[in-house]
């Protein structure tokens, strides 16, 4: 029926871990409203384990669902495990996303890394999973659409970007 499966809809309708965190140990923000998606993830860390995570997201259903499941996945994880979390695991956790929405899971993955980066900076820690990570980078170049600088460029075989297809109001 709808464009999303039941798991995605469930996370979108009843997102877990929404909100702000008082005195978080690390905060990461990724995306921008101009691009249509902006996630903020805050984490509480104890003994290198993520004890709690909260998010706030401006974005579509899949962006909110990705944020929800991603925070759920990282709570209880060690920092190293959280850094190893891939966007594919987020997508799999949601039981799949439409091809054009995959970038939403990339945003969640990136926001988590940014939050851990913030935590590492504040506490003078280094993690192997953060090597070469720049929280201000615009994501891998091939994922950026040329005009906007927004993540969301779809370049895979399932890419419908050039199909002229549009759901704009008729």
């Amino acid at each position, binding site marked *: 029926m*709808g464009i*999303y499966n039941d798991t995605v*809809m469930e996370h*979108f*309708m009843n*997102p877990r871990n*929404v909100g702000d965190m008082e005195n978080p140990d690390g905060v990461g*923000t990724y995306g*921008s*409203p*101009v691009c*249509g*998606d*902006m*996630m*903020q993830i805050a984490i509480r860390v104890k003994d290198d384990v993520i004890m709690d995570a909260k*998010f*706030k*997201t*401006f*974005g*579509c*259903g899949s*962006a*909110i669902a990705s944020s929800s499941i991603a925070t759920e996945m990282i709570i209880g994880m060690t920092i190293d495990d959280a850094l190893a979390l891939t966007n594919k695991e987020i997508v799999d956790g949601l039981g799949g996303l439409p091809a*054009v*929405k995959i970038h939403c899971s990339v945003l969640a993955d990136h926001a988590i890394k940014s939050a851990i980066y913030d935590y590492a900076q504040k506490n003078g820690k280094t993690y192997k999973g953060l090597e070469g990570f720049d929280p201000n980078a615009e994501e891998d170049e091939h994922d950026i*659409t040329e005009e*906007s600088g927004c993540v*969301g460029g*779809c370049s895979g075989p399932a890419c*419908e*970007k*050039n*199909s*002229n*297809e*549009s*759901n*704009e*109001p*008729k």
Partner: protein
Amino acid sequence: MANHRDVYLDYSATTPVKEEVFQEMLPWFTENYGNPSSIYTIGQKSKEALHQARSRVAKLIGAKEDEIYFTSTGTEADNWAIFGAVDSLKTKGNHIITTVFEHHAILHACQFLEQRGTRVTYLPVDSQGLVDPKKVEEAISEDTVLITIMAVNNEIGTVQPIREISEIAKRHGVLFHTDGVQAVGSIPVNVKEWGVDMMSISSHKIYGPKGVGALYIRKGLRISNFMHGGGQEGKRRAGTENLPGIVGFGKAAELAYDHLDHHIEHVKTLRDYFTQEVLRRIPEVTINGTMEHRHPGNINLAFNYIEGEGILLLLDREGISVSTGSACNSAALTPSHVLSAIGLPVERIHGSIRFTMGDYTTREDVDYVINVLEDTVKKLREISSVNEKKGW
């Protein structure tokens, strides 16, 4: 929360077929199946029905019967007008004037010709969503063969100064086509008063069936054919007529003509009430496009700090159907070209929703939508990483 109900507020996308229309169509599927081109009795019966439908559609737009050519869709009518005019005038010139916020049936047809050497000027529109006739005149040059500008915009409902543009076109001897798909049946339309040379219309926007449209071509004007084959539609649009569809279109046109004033009053009252209540009850909402020259059933609102697909999905869960200009709702991930054209910042395009009322919309429906919308916006704003305090 009030009891769940199904509320369709997307009448500009399409409309349900009215019961009277449906009933009138039925015999033309199974009983009266004759081909209007056949000279025996049942063929001639079909021909007579075709004639009646044509005269009803003509009456709705103030045209003569022999100025109406049935097509498969409004899109076909748009394509035909453009390709037909450009082809027939190729010795005169090769320049089209249109606007940046036309329907894709116009824009993509123009882009197709552009790739084949036609020069196309895409005029801007102002922040209110209106075309400046002066800019149209300035864009005309020696080789201009066609001006095509929509009468009513499909997303923001703004009504364009068609008569002024038509006078300019006439003064310069340039053909003027208007996409009237969103105008006909929603505002008073008279092709003679407007002075247009061609106008596209669609059946499914006026409570008729899908798969039927028409192109009005002013008497005396010849443009090249688009569909080639048999001698249907006065040898100008080949293909066996979609008779049940055309009969339905005719009936829908008759009803639209008879009830136009009531229809306008009905949708405008609901639209104005809805708009006023939403603006009163929900903070940080702005109207896209002018309210002064606007389709009576259309309102397009930008809900700051949230994204349209989320709004649409939550409303859908509660039985409410609306449209959004958000990029997240398009396969191409591009925000609405119409809202971009009026200069709306992209982040606010993402949070824009179009609501369009119709004949079956009730006050109870509107009250229900306002309540659900208030909760929906509140919920998404609680989740959002941007807000009034923080700003974008």
